[in-house]
């Protein structure tokens, strides 16, 4: 009943919400019944568009016309794509199962990259690229690739081109030349090479036939750090990531000033998300006791709170395409629900939810 009242309140008293746009999210408490829904700000209504069961986090195509997500279809975990209205569902044709690292769209919207798992001991992870126009699925990274997880497309090759090849060791310079050529033709992914036996992960650049350590190009590698959550900014000129290279989990930015810690605090900081203008990162932290959402101005590393509460946790920040709003998940009212607010934390509203709502993704404005 309380949930119903909250829902009704959110429906009626949502004057501060944006007038247009949409958020895709996971709806449902039980994993087996989770389904992708889309909330439309114009109509203030949400509807289910998912397919199969166990739907994972949604990922919008760059033009905002389709949504990709992991799902269990025909007793297998794979990547599914549906139109905005839930029509024309397609499932990636692949023998191996995928893990639920979210599928990622190429900048031109023609391909999807995802993580797959091979049933070996220990298991091996790979990066698969699905061309939606030809239905072809190709494993990227070359024959000698390490185990790879969580791929994400670089929006451009700008950062790659800015690396000074002459300062690299000979064999690295050679690989870099090859990788640049391939990246120009096919695009380039960043992913995590996974070495659990050494308690480390390593960000890598991945093209169809090449895998190259990314941080190696910027500084000598630490053999005891574990990176995760690689996030290029919209132009592909800087990459945010989390790492324990300083002892505790912090957010770093690889960009024009080298590698910079932009959150420095003894409490863990994680899950960076770039603002559309590339100036701010929204992230999660425990610095005030509970899991909350904060902003850091990357240029100065000045941190301000966005959503922190004593009565519950807030997580999964996502920017609106115009940078004026942040969506996030908060379990402030008995169940996880999606909230939106301005980046300074003002005008917070709860979007109508009747059950658990997770993993918000704002629809791009499109072209």
């Amino acid at each position, binding site marked *: 009943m*309380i949930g119903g009242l909250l829902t009704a309140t959110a429906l009626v008293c949502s004057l501060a919400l944006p007038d247009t746009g949409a958020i895709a999210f*996971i709806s449902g*408490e*039980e*994993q*087996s019944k989770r389904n992708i829904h889309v909330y439309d700000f114009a109509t203030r209504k949400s509807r289910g568009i998912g397919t199969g069961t*166990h739907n*994972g*986090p949604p990922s919008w195509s760059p033009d905002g016309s389709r949504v990709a997500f992991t799902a269990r279809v025909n007793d297998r*975990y794979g990547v599914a794509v549906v139109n905005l209205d839930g029509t024309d569902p397609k499932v990636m044709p692949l023998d191996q*199962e*995928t*893990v*639920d*690292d979210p599928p990622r769209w190429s900048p031109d919207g023609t391909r999807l990259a995802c993580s797959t*798992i091979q049933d070996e*001991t*220990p*298991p091996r*992870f790979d990066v698969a690229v699905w061309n939606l126009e030809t239905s072809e699925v190709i494993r990227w990274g070359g024959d000698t690739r390490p185990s790879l*997880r*969580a791929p994400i497309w670089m929006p451009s090759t700008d950062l790659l081109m800015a690396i000074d090849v002459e300062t690299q060791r000979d064999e690295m310079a050679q690989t870099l030349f090859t990788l640049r050529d391939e990246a120009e033709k096919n695009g380039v992914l960043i992913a995590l090479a996974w070495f*659990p*036996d050494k*308690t480390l992960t390593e960000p890598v650049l991945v093209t169809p036939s090449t895998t190259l350590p990314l941080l190696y190009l910027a500084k000598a590698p630490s053999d005891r750090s*574990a990176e*995760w959550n690689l996030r290029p900014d919209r132009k592909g000129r800087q990459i945010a990531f989390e790492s*324990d290279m300083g002892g*505790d*989990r912090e957010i770093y930015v690889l960009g024009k000033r080298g590698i910079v810690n932009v959150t420095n605090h003894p409490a*863990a900081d*994680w899950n960076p998300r770039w603002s559309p203008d590339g100036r701010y990162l929204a992230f*999660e932290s*425990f610095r005030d006791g*509970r*899991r909350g959402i904060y902003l850091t101005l990357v240029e100065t590393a000045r941190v301000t709170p966005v959503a922190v509460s*004593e*009565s*519950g*946790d807030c*997580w*999964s920040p996502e920017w609106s395409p115009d940078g004026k709003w942040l969506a996030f*998940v908060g*379990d*402030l*009212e*008995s*169940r*996880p629900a999606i909230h939106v607010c301005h980046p300074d934390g003002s005008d917070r509203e709860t979007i109508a939810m009747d059950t*658990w709502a*997770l*993993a918000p993704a704002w629809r791009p404005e499109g072209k």
Partner: protein
Amino acid sequence: MGCNRSYRARLGLIVAIVAVVCLLPVRMAFARAEDGTLAWIWSPHDGQPALTQPGQSFEVLLRGTSAPTEIPVFTLEGTDGAEFPLETKIHGMEQSAFARYTCVVPATARPGGYALRVRGTDGTTDITRRAVWVLDAEPRAYYVLAHVTDVHIGKQRPAGPDPDTTFSAVIEAISKTDAALCAITGDITESAEPDQFRRFLELLDRFTIPTLVCSGNHDRDNLWYERFWGVQTWARQFGPDGFLVFDTKDYVVADDWGPQAGRLHQLRRFLRPCRYTIGLTHRYEPAMGMRSQLILFVDDPIDLLLYGHTHQERRPGEGPSWGNAGIVITPACVDGYFRLIDITAQGPVARPVSRIPEDALITRHSDEKK
């Protein structure tokens, strides 16, 4: 006159019966002992007990959408009939759904297991059995931990003893050891049906030591596990050590976007000062949430992870290969297995797995059927 007295007596009896029948659902609807589901007391209970000492405090979560105007009365009830009213403070609301309290155990409370009773000012009452364990004042540097997993209550076994009989025999065998507490790591039921949870609870309460229970994939086909056991990510301290209990979710469904990863991180930090931190879960898959793996094996590595799921001893290469976390996989209780682990000053040392002989189980099974 005699007839009149008899009529009045019968009328009185009828009124009394009607009153009991009418009042019972109201008064007992909150009792876990009634239908097994959690009601007013969300924590602690017999799967997530409070482990405390005389003079120390423990936390209680009561369900409710607003903080009560008057603090309810909390009482510890021993199996010998001893009752200890508890000094209580309210801390506030959590997620608009729970009120959090701190209760202080009287210095005079004897070591042992207690039921926790709460009584509201409106007469509402609730009780959870084996919810609070008052431990010896001195923390133990050495103790024995029992590990039981994959009980599968409700599994049909036409050719062998039923899971109830086997679990009951395992409990009896553990009670003959010097185990100080028992970890039960999931698949407690075959198909997450309320009756299976109730039967598990009835058997669980035969334990004379604290029991830490987590869910398995067979327990999560629906939401009944939450109704019987509450939250799935929680922690307890036992003497110098910490126990971190969590759910690894479905195969390759990592669920890093849900509430668990944050709670896991917060609880891991809370247990950081402990001598050893021991993780309890049902299964481990390399594809499980990367966030959870970073928390458990990289950022603040746990010392030992106990789980089951495979119904077998650990095979070469199985389990997390991150860093140096110890791994113990115990075969299934439904096949008569359990394991004892010595928690020593030099670290946890798992003993070889123990098994109740099948012929003993079959004899016991036929005895119980009679």
